Every structure is written in C-alpha cells, then in structure tokens.
C-alpha cells in the first residue's frame, strides 16, 4: 500500500510530505517530498543588498532566527575581511546560545507531543516564551529578530537585558532537570525512542548529517570547537556526544546541549559586562552604518549613513563561505560577489535540508509509528529546507 503522509500532517513539523510504501505496518520504501514552502530566497537575495537579506533569513529557520542572522553576517564579514568588535561577538554568542535553548525547547516539546507525552510541551513552551521575551526586549520582535548586522549589531542592548538573561540562565538548569525527570527514564519514552530510527555513524557521514543528528551517531564534531567563530574558543563548554545512533541518543545530545548552552550564555554575560559599554558595531563606515547619534552631529557620518542606506556597501570581487553550528547543524552562507552591493549569488547550506536526507535510512524496514519518532528526532524546520 502507498500511504501519503503530509503535507498537512501535524507531526511533519510544517509541510513535509513523505510517500510511504507499506507492507502492513512496515515501511518498505520512503520518499520525502519537499518544496511546499519554497519562496525563492536565494533568487531574491540577488536583488537585495546584503543587509536587506537579513530579514529573509529570519524566515528560514524561524525557530532560531538569530542563528540565521549570524551565519549571514559572518559570511558577509568574511567576504569583506572585517570582524565585529569583541563585545558585539560576546552579545552574539549570548543571544545565539539562548536561541539554541529556545529551539531545542520547541523541538523537545513537539517531539514529545508527537510521541504522546503532552505535559513536556507546556513546560518547554514556558521556557521558550522567556527567550522570546528577551528577543522582544532586544529588538522589539518576538520571532523575526533581524538583530545582527554585518560588522556587529543593529543597536546596543537595552538596559536590564543582561539581568534578565542572567535570571533565565540561572533558572534554566532546573527546568532541564524537570524535562529529564519527565522523560529520561520514562518507560514509554524509552520504548518509543530507544533503538528507534537508527542512523549508523557511516551512514550519517555519507549522508552529510550535521549537528545533534551527527553527534547522536557518535561523531564528535561541533563547529564551535572545531572551527571557532565569534570567539567560541574562549568559552569553556563540552560537546555532548552519544553513541546510541538512535532517537534516544539524539534526545540525550540535545538535552545535554541545553545545559552546555546555559553555561556558555553565563560566561557570555560575564564577558559582555566586562567589555567597554557601547561597543556594539565596527567603526568602519565604508561597510557599517555609523551610530545614529553621530549621524545627527557629524557631516562625515551623515554622508556614510546616506551612502550605505542608499546603495549598500561595496564588497570586493570574490567569494566566501562561512558556517556556524546552528541548533540543527551546520548552517552556512556562500556569497559570490561581483563588486556591486548586491550578491551575485547567495547559497544557503541549511542543516535541515541535508539532515532530512537521512530519513529513509532511518525508517525503511520499520513501523509507521516510528516514522513520527524519526521525523521528530531529526528536528527539521521546513522553512529552512525549502527556503
């Protein structure tokens, strides 16, 4: 029998469609069909300046908007050969780690809900809401943050933000304990995830899986450690790796990552406090907007402001690819520049797109009910897959 799962199925996390060829309840063959959310972001980017593409990226992985902003900014900075000031880097680290926690909260809540544990969902969304209110405080938007800019941040962080973040970071480990108390030794949870949706180390590498999907298959690979960006080499944290190669291993990895992220965020808060206040954007006005206060008082700043707003900045002719460890895996942006303010080509290497390719390997020869677990354990976001 051929069964069409999705694209409107609630457990496909958006508009994923999987065509399943079944023998009774066993999946013989599975084929994911994607593209229902395709909006041509890569084409649109060729008609926008680099800065204008930042709001687009919020809509890719809409559970981790700041990670997407960061990847775009880092790629553009690599192309330009500039680097944001240390304090801006620390704020970026702080906010992207909170993003990772919030993204993992949504993943855990929905994954558990798919499998039948409803309570976890409410617990997780409670914490996610706190991160969203931090976004709200920072930039005025709960989800589409667009807060990072090439060369730094859109504006300085508001007063009281660090205290709010500190409160969240202090409380979070206890909440992760709550999630673990509900799930980690829960016999139903174990029965539904242990040994389910297996992905061997060799298959994970061959299929290009990254992020928790790869680390759940026993590969110690995290771009924050291996190829540090934003000064991650100055933070003390561990990379959780599990050898289980199943949905439970991926669960363990992500839960452990939430704990590590609170550690990193805690260190980042301390670092932001130590660094000189007000230093949130590079003062290289050929590429970066001058602060608004200066625009009102300085002629040069006004000219730079006008030039950058009217044309955008002019990068050198060349190309650059920069990748970050997003909550879902390696998220990279590739820019080809022809020297004009609009990229000749923007390519997004989205982790969900690549990770989803492992789905048939995980579910072929297994039960239909395990398909739901497999999709949940991959932590995909269709906005990012279809772009």
């Amino acid at each position, binding site marked *: 029998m051929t069964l069409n799962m999705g694209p409107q199925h609630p457990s496909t996390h958006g508009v994923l469609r999987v065509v399943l060829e079944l023998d009774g309840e066993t999946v013989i063959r599975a084929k994911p069909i*994607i*593209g229902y959310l*395709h909006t*041509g972001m*890569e*084409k*649109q980017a*060729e*008609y926008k300046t680099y800065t204008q593409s930042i709001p687009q990226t919020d809509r890719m992985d809409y559970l981790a908007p700041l990670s997407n902003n960061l990847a775009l900014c880092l790629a553009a900075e*690599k*192309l330009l*050969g500039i680097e944001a000031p240390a304090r801006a880097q620390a704020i970026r680290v702080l906010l992207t780690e909170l993003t990772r926690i919030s993204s993992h909260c949504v993943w855990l809540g929905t994954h558990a809900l798919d499998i039948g544990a409803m309570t976890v969902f409410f617990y997780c969304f409670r914490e996610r809401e706190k991160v969203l209110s931090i976004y709200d405080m920072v930039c005025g938007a709960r989800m589409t943050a667009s807060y990072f800019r090439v060369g730094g941040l859109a504006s300085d962080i508001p007063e009281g933000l660090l205290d709010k973040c500190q409160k969240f970071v202090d409380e979070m480990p206890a909440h992760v304990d709550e999630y673990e108390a509900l799930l980690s030794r829960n016999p139903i949870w174990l029965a539904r995830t242990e040994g389910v949706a297996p992905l061997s180390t060799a298959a994970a*590498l*061959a*299929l*290009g899986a990254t992020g928790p999907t790869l680390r759940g298959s026993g*590969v110690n*690979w995290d771009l924050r450690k*291996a*190829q540090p960006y934003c000064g991650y080499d100055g933070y003390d944290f561990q990379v959780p790796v599990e050898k289980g190669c199943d949905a439970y291993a991926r669960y363990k990895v992500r839960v452990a990552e939430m704990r590590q992220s609170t550690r990193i965020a805690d260190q980042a808060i301390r670092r932001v406090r130590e660094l000189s206040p007000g230093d949130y954007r590079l003062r290289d006005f050929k590429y970066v907007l001058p602060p608004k206060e200066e625009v009102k008082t300085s002629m040069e700043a006004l000219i730079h402001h006008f030039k950058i707003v009217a044309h955008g900045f002019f*990068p*050198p*002719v*060349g*190309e*650059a*690819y920069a*990748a970050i460890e997003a909550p879902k895996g*390696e998220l*990279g942006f*590739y820019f*080809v*520049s022809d020297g004009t303010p609009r990229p*000749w*080509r923007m*390519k997004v*290497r989205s982790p969900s*797109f*690549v990770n989803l*390719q492992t789905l048939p390997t995980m579910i072929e020869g297994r039960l239909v009910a395990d398909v739901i677990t497999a999709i949940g354990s991959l932590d995909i976001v269709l906005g990012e897959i*279809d*772009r």
Partner: protein
Amino acid sequence: MAPTPEAVEQRLRERFPDVAFRRQEGAAVRDHTVYLPADRLVEVCTFLRDDPGLDFAMLTWVGGVDWLPREPRFDVVYHLLSLSKNLRFVLKVSVADENPRVPTVSGVWPTANWHERETFDFYGIRFTGHPDLTRILLPDDWEGWPLRKDSPLGYQEVAFTHNTPNRSVPAPDLERLAPKKVTYRAH
C-alpha cells in the same frame, strides 16, 4: 599536523599529473578553490575521500553559479570537509551553456543526491548517472530554471490553467469522489 588546502592541491597535482587543475585567483576568494575538468571529477573526488592523509569524508554542499555572459556559463561548486583533519576544500567545475552536464558524485557521497537535484532544479544542469534527477523544491511541471540570470524575478502573470494554453489539470474522477453510502451501526 593537519594539511593545509595548499598541500591538498599539491597532493592532487602529484597524484593526477594529467588533470588540468587551476587555482581560482583573486584576493577576496576567501576559500582555497580549485577548478578541474568535469570528466575527471568522480575520480578526483573518490581519491579525496579515500586517501587516509586527506579523508574528506563529508561533502558539505553542492551548488551552482550562473556567470552569464561568461563562457563557459556555469560553475558547479563542491564544498568538501575533512572531519579528522579539520579542513575544508573547494572544487569547482565549469559547464557550458549548451546542454550543461556534469557527472554525479552521488556515488562517492550519497548526500550529493539532493544537492545535485537542487542544482538541477535551479539551473537545469544535468548530473549524468544521478539515480533520481527530478525537481526537488519547485513543482514538477515548472518551466524554466529560476536561478539562471536570464530568468525573470516576478512581475509576470501567474500561470493558471485559464491563461496558459498547455497547462492542464487532470479531470477529477467523479465516480471515486462521489460520497459513499454509509450505514451506521447502533451501539
């Protein structure tokens, strides 16, 4: 000591003396990029993956670039990653406008399957030997290659059946759609 991208290029030149490798020039080409002819691609990729001193176990992504009006028009970009050596390396293949074809590397890295489908979908570059070269993000009946530079960006009329001569949807099977007679069983 981990090898540098320069050392990888050197190693390739020694191993394949008859292949015309060409380093991409340019101060702002931030990643070490090497062009090679399409017909030797699979051979070189297999070597890069299997050589224990290089060990490019992962293909991070594949993408296309349209250089209209340059000749040859397209580039296909391969970003490789060696986890054990913590090293990235970029290969590029140039493809002509007329009947663009590149051999598939999905036999070397299975992950190339979807990346190549995406590149086909966007640019119409055909990957010979690909197991399932179909559209991936766009609908199957889409006409044209949207990321080519001569493909328009919006402002056209949206294609519906009533304004596009050859576009049709199959007539619904009325018999199958007709409501079935349902008998309810009393509890």
